[in-house]
C-alpha cells in the first residue's frame, strides 16, 4: 500500500501556500450551519459515500498569546495533550485510538490552537469522547512531560541547522523584533526548560473556552447526530475562557508590519545551497483588494509552473529547483512571501533577478492574458484541493477563522471574476514594492552584500 514513500518529484517543495483560492461549482459542496441545544455552532458537510468522519476545530488562542518567558507553551500543550487523559495513561490513550482506527492531532499556530479528528462512523462517539477527555482532563504525567520536552528541545536544535526552518525563524525574529510573532513557535531551549506541569494545566483551564471555538465537520453523519455530539464533546468547556474574562495575562498583540523591508540579512551556514526567503506586506483577507492581490500572486510566483519568477529564475537560467510565492495572513499582519534555493555562487544573481521582476511587476502589472490565465487557474484549482473529508473540513475551518461567510464556496468565483486589468495594475503599483521586500539568506552566498549578518544562536 502507499506508505512512507520516498518519491522524488518536480514539486514546489516547502511552500505552504495559504489560501490558494478559486470557486467550486455551487452544487458540489453544501455547507450547513448546525447549532447544538447547548448553543455550540458547527459548519457541516454531509458525505455518506464513505464511513469516514473528519473534524477540524480551533480555539482562538495561540503562540502569540504565550507569555514571553514561556515562549513555546502552546506548542508544548499541543504535543502533550495526547499523552493521556482521565483514567488513561499515554500508552492506553494512544492504544485505544489505534484500536478505533482513529487519529486525534493538534496543530498550534501563532493565532490559533487547532486540532483534528479522523474517525469512522461506528467509533464516532467513543473517539469524540477521547477528544473531550484530552481537552478537559489531560493528565500531563511527569514522564510524558519529560519526554515531550526532550522531543521539542531536539526539534529546536535540528531546525537551527536546517536552512528553510532557520530562514523562517530568523525572518520573523528580525522583522517582528518587539512583537510576539518574532518569537519562535517551538520556543527556545531556555524557555522550554522552564515550562512545568502547572503551566500546562493552567493553559487548558484558562485558554480553552466555547467563546473562542470554531468547529467544522465533514463526513458520514447528519445534523441531528452532530448536535448532541457537539454538546458532549465541547459542552464541558467553560462558556467563556477565564483568560477572556480577566484578559490580564496576554492581551491581544498589536497589528504590525515587517521592520526589515528592503534589507538582506545573512545567516552563515556551510551548506552547498543557500535558502533565500523574501517577504513584504500583503493585504488582509477583509481588504477590498485582497482578491486582486491573490490573482497578482499567481502571475508573479504562486501555485503553478508558469509564473514570472519560475520563468526568470528556473526555466531560462536554471538558478533554482524551487521558487515560489504565496500569501500568508495572520490576525495582526499580512504577508506576500516567497522562497528560493540556489547554489551559493548564484545567490547574488538570484536576489537581483527577484528584485528586478518585483520592480517590473509593480510598474507594469500583469498582461491581459496573464490576468485571464491566473483567474481561470484560481477558479478551477480551488476545487481540486477538496480531495478528502479532512481537506474539506480544513477549508471550512479556514473560512471561519478568517471571517469568511458560510456560502463562501459559492461566492469565491464571483470575487475573482470581478478583478479587472485596471484593478490589477493599480494594486500592483500600490502594494508590490521592492523597497519593502526583505530577504533572509541562509548559506554561504556569493555576490550579495548583506545589510546585517545575524548570529542564529538562541
Amino acid at each position, binding site marked *: *500500500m*502507499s*506508505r*512512507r514513500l520516498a*518519491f*522524488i*518529484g518536480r*514539486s514546489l*517543495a516547502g511552500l505552504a501556500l495559504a489560501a490558494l483560492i478559486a470557486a467550486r*461549482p455551487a452544487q*458540489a459542496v453544501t455547507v450547513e450551519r448546525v447549532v447544538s441545544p447547548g448553543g455550540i455552532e458547527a459548519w457541516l458537510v454531509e458525505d455518506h*459515500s*464513505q464511513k*469516514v468522519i473528519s473534524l477540524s476545530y480551533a480555539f482562538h488562542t495561540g503562540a502569540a498569546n504565550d507569555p514571553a518567558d514561556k515562549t513555546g507553551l502552546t506548542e508544548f500543550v499541543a*504535543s502533550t495533550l495526547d499523552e493521556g487523559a482521565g483514567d488513561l495513561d*499515554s*500508552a492506553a490513550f*494512544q492504544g485505544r*485510538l*489505534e*484500536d*478505533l482506527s482513529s*487519529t486525534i*492531532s493538534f496543530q498550534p499556530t501563532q493565532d490559533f490552537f487547532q486540532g*483534528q479528528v479522523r474517525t469512522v462512523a*461506528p467509533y464516532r462517539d467513543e473517539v469524540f469522547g477521547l477528544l473531550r477527555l484530552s481537552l478537559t482532563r489531560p493528565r500531563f504525567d511527569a*514522564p510524558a512531560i*519529560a*519526554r*515531550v520536552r*526532550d*522531543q521539542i528541545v*531536539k526539534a529546536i*536544535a535540528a531546525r537551527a*541547522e536546517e536552512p528553510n526552518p532557520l530562514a523562517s525563524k530568523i525572518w520573523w525574529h528580525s522583522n517582528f523584533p518587539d512583537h510576539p510573532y518574532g518569537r519562535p513557535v517551538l520556543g527556545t531551549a531556555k524557555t522550554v526548560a522552564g515550562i512545568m506541569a502547572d503551566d500546562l494545566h493552567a493553559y487548558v483551564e484558562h485558554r480553552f473556552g466555547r467563546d473562542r471555538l470554531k468547529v467544522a465537520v465533514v463526513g458520514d453523519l447528519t445534523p441531528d447526530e452532530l448536535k448532541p455530539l457537539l454538546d458532549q464533546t465541547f459542552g464541558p468547556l467553560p462558556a467563556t475562557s477565564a483568560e477572556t474574562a480577566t484578559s490580564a495575562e496576554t492581551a491581544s498583540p498589536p497589528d504590525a508590519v515587517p521592520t526589515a523591508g528592503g534589507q538582506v540579512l545573512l545567516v552563515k551556514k*556551510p551548506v*552547498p*545551497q543557500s535558502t533565500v526567503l523574501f517577504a513584504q506586506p500583503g493585504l488582509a483577507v477583509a481588504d477590498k483588494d485582497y482578491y486582486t492581490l491573490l490573482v497578482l500572486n499567481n502571475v508573479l510566483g504562486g501555485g*503553478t*509552473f*508558469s509564473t514570472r519568477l519560475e*520563468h526568470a529564475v*528556473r*526555466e*531560462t*537560467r*536554471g538558478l*533554482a*529547483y524551487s521558487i515560489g510565492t504565496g500569501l500568508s495572513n495572520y490576525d495582526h499582519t499580512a504577508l506576500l512571501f516567497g522562497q528560493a534555493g*540556489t547554489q551559493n555562487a548564484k545567490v547574488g544573481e538570484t536576489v537581483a533577478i527577484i528584485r528586478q521582476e518585483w520592480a517590473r511587476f509593480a510598474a507594469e502589472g500583469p498582461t491581459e492574458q496573464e490576468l485571464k*490565465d491566473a483567474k*481561470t*487557474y484560481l477558479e*478551477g484549482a480551488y*476545487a*481540486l484541493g*477538496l*480531495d*478528502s473529508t*479532512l481537506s474539506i473540513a480544513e477549508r471550512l475551518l479556514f473560512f471561519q477563522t478568517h471571517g469568511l461567510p458560510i456560502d463562501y464556496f459559492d461566492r469565491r468565483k464571483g470575487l475573482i471574476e470581478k478583478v479587472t486589468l485596471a484593478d490589477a495594475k493599480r494594486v500592483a503599483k500600490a502594494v508590490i514594492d521592492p523597497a519593502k521586500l526583505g530577504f533572509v539568506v541562509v548559506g554561504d552566498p556569493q555576490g550579495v552584500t548583506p545589510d546585517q549578518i545575524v548570529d542564529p544562536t538562541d
Partner: protein
Amino acid sequence: MRRTAGSILATAVAVALLGMFPRAGQAAPLFGESEFALPNGLEVVVVPNHRAPNVTQMVWYKVGSADEERGWSGVAHFLEHLMFKGTKNLKPKEFSEIVARNGGQENAFTSWDYTAYYQTVASDRLPLVMKLEADRMHDLVITNEQLLPERQVILEEWRMRIGNVPSATLDQQIEAALYLNHPYRIPVLGWSEEMAKLDLAHERRFYDTWYAPNNAVLVIAGDVTVEAAKKLAQQYYGPIPRKAVPARLRPVEPQREANTTVELKSARVRNPVWSRVYLAPSYHSGETQYAYALEVLAEVLGGGANSRLHKALVIDQQIATGAGASYDPQRLDLGKFSYYVSPRVGTPIDAAAEAAEAVVAKTVAEGVTADEVERAKTRLKNEVLYANDSLSQPANVIGRALATGSSLADLDAWPDRIGAVTVDEVNAAAHAVLEGKTSVTARLLPAKPGAGGPEKPLPPQSLPEQIR
C-alpha cells in the same frame, strides 16, 4: 507526542461493520476499479468516483533509475524534467501553461522502478490532459537549449534534497552499502558527479527505448465513467505505436558476507540517529512467501504507540524520543527491512542501539503474540478505508502496484492476504530475514564545527553563461 495523521489501527469488528471486504470467492475491487488494455498494449485502469467533479490522470512508465545505463545515473529523473520541455506539437513550457490555464494541477515523480506523471483537473477537462499526456508519450522534443538550464535545475534539486541534508546523504551511503551489485545502490537523483554530465544523446536514447504505450499504465480516477474513459483512451492513446521494449534485466544481488557500518559525522547534525537495515524479500523477488508476514512484523515492531520498539525504548525505558521499524514490499527486486532509534538527550547512542537490538533479538527468539498480530493486521487493512476517502490516493496506490510487478488481483487480495497471516508466519519471516543475516548499521552523529569528514565538494559548474 504529536503525530500527523499516519497509519490507522482498527479491530476486526470494524471491518465487518464497515462491510469493506467481501469474503466470498475472489476479492472485490479495492477501489471499485476496472481494467482493460488497448490494442497497442497500454494498460488502463479506471476508478469512477463521483463525489466531486474532479478527475486525476496518472501515467506510470515501467522504467526508473534502476534501469539506467551504468555511468549515467540520473538519466531517468532528468528525463522526467525534460518531459515538460516541449513536443512536436507543443512549445517548451506550453504543457504546464495549458494545464494551469485550465485550473489544473500537475507534477511528476521518479523512483527506482517507475516514473509517473499526473494531472488533476475538473472532469470536463479530462480529454484535454489526456491529449497532452498522450502527445508526450511519443512526440517529445529535446534540445540543448532546454536541456542545459534544466541540468542546473536538477543539480539545485540535488543540493536541496541531498547536499543540504546530512541524513539524506547518509541514506545514500546506506543504500550503496546494502546493495553490493544491484542498481538500487544508486540514488534515484543520480550521483551528482554524473548528473553534471548528462547529455542529450543519453536522454533521447532512454526515452526512445522505454517510453511506449506497451510499457505504461494509465490510471484515471474520479468523476468519469468506464465507458467514457475507454473511448477517450482509445481516441488519444490508441494511435500511438507500440515499441519493442527491452526486458528489465537487472544485475543479480550476490550473497552478503559481511556486516557494514556506515557513519556520518557533521557539524550540521545536532541529534544522533542509529539505524540498521537488512536485505529482505519483496512481493516479487527473494523469498516472496514472507512479504505479507514482514508487513505485519514491521507493524508489530515499530508501527505505532504500542509497537514493541516504541513502547520499550520511548515509554518504558525512557531512553529514546523515537523508535520504529519499516518495510516496503513494493519493489521489482529485493527490498529492505529496517529499524531505528533516536536517543533521548543524555542517552549515549550505543546504549540506545543496544536496547533496540535487544528488543528485536527478543522478538526473533521468543516470537510475537496473537493479540499483537491481530491488531497489526487490522491497522494495516484499515489504511484502505482512508485511502478511499481521497479522490487521488487510489490512483497512486494502483499505479505503484502495477508499475512494480503486482496485478490488480494482487492489490484486491491484499486485505485478505494480510488478514490470513498467522503468528507462525510472522515468526518464520522474522527468522528468515533477521536471524544471523548480515546488515548495514548506520550512525548519524554530530561533530564540532571544523571536525568530522570533509564536506562533499560541489559538482563542477559545466554550464556556460546562458545566452538570452
